[in-house]
């Protein structure tokens, strides 16, 4: 006996009830449960759908689908970090390394020439923060709408949209910049530390640019590469 469409829908609902929110995992688990239930019916046709489902679900152990979900999240987060790293490396390969070096040198020269270098560095950092927050809030709004419209959710898409674990990274160096700005006579008059700081700032800007601009703009491609079923849903 085969499962009916209604029963497949019930299985999707069942995975949602058990905290599997993403369609990519849902569809794989639904197929697994459906196969398992159909096999059970071959051996014991008297079982009801719910009984058979219960037996199969118990095989996943006391934590149910949690293990599968957590591991999947870990794997995809790692994949995301690798993606960021790949883009990051680009900025140190030819030809982009020229840009990286040029930006560092320009910033260094400005800091060296200007008398207001502590304001410049804080100002630039503020621009980065404002840009980040603007992106985060804009994104959150779009995501909220998507959730309410009951569209299918994809785990990797969500990781991209939540920027992995990087979104907090913009605030982390705040102390460094405050320290530098308040002791600018010490840090910014010294060529080495000014050059180091310029380079650090450029690195930070690159990472933010990758996470908030480059990867989201290519998100569709990455999702297609991750999920062959993604294209079926988009048609």
């Amino acid at each position, binding site marked *: 006996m*085969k*499962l*009916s*469409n209604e029963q*497949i829908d019930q299985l999707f609902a069942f995975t949602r009830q058990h905290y599997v929110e993403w369609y990519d995992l849902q*569809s*794989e*688990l*639904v*197929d*697994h449960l*459906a*196969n*398992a239930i159909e*096999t059970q019916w071959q051996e014991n046709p008297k079982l009801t759908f719910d009984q058979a489902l219960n037996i199969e679900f118990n*095989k*996943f*152990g006391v*934590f149910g689908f949690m*293990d*599968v979900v957590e*591991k*999947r999240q870990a*794997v*995809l987060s*790692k*994949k995301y970090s690798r993606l960021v790293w790949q883009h990051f490396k680009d900025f140190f390969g030819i030809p982009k390394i020229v840009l990286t070096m040029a930006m560092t040198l320009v910033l260094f020269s400005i800091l060296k020439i200007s008398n207001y270098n502590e304001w410049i560095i804080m100002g630039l950092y503020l621009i980065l923060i404002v840009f980040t927050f603007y992106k985060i809030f804009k994104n959150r709004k779009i995501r909220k709408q998507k959730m309410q419209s009951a569209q299918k959710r994809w785990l990797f898409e969500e990781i991209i949209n939540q920027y992995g674990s990087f979104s907090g990274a913009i605030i982390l160096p705040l102390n460094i910049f405050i320290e530098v700005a308040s002791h600018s006579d010490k840090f910014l008059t010294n060529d080495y530390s000014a050059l180091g700081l310029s380079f650090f700032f450029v690195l930070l800007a690159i990472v933010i640019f990758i996470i908030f601009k480059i990867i989201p703009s290519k998100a569709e491609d990455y999702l297609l590469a991750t999920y*062959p*079923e993604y294209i*079926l849903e988009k048609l």
Partner: protein
Amino acid sequence: MKNSQLYKGSLNTIIMKLLEENGKMYGYEITQKVKIITQGELNITEGALYPALHKLEAEGILDVEIERVDNRMRKYYKLTESGQKETINRLAELEDFIRNMQSLVNPKPNLEF
């Protein structure tokens, strides 16, 4: 899984070996195949299988394909090119391990006496 600690380290290799022999397989099919081959002795738990598959996929050892079967989508796994090479390595490793364990558990009588 029976005696899970002993089998755990070999789960990836078991999956890769099965895919090498059968081309593409889906999760449930793998659990059933293992059950048949080992005559019910070895039962891969669902909670261990899918994380292993997803990890191998992320490592580039497996590739996925989606097919619509009946009224649902089925996700097939198959070895990538680098996965096929890796399978040969891991199988050799596993065979070494089995041989070493065998000689440790059942040492051959020393014939020099």
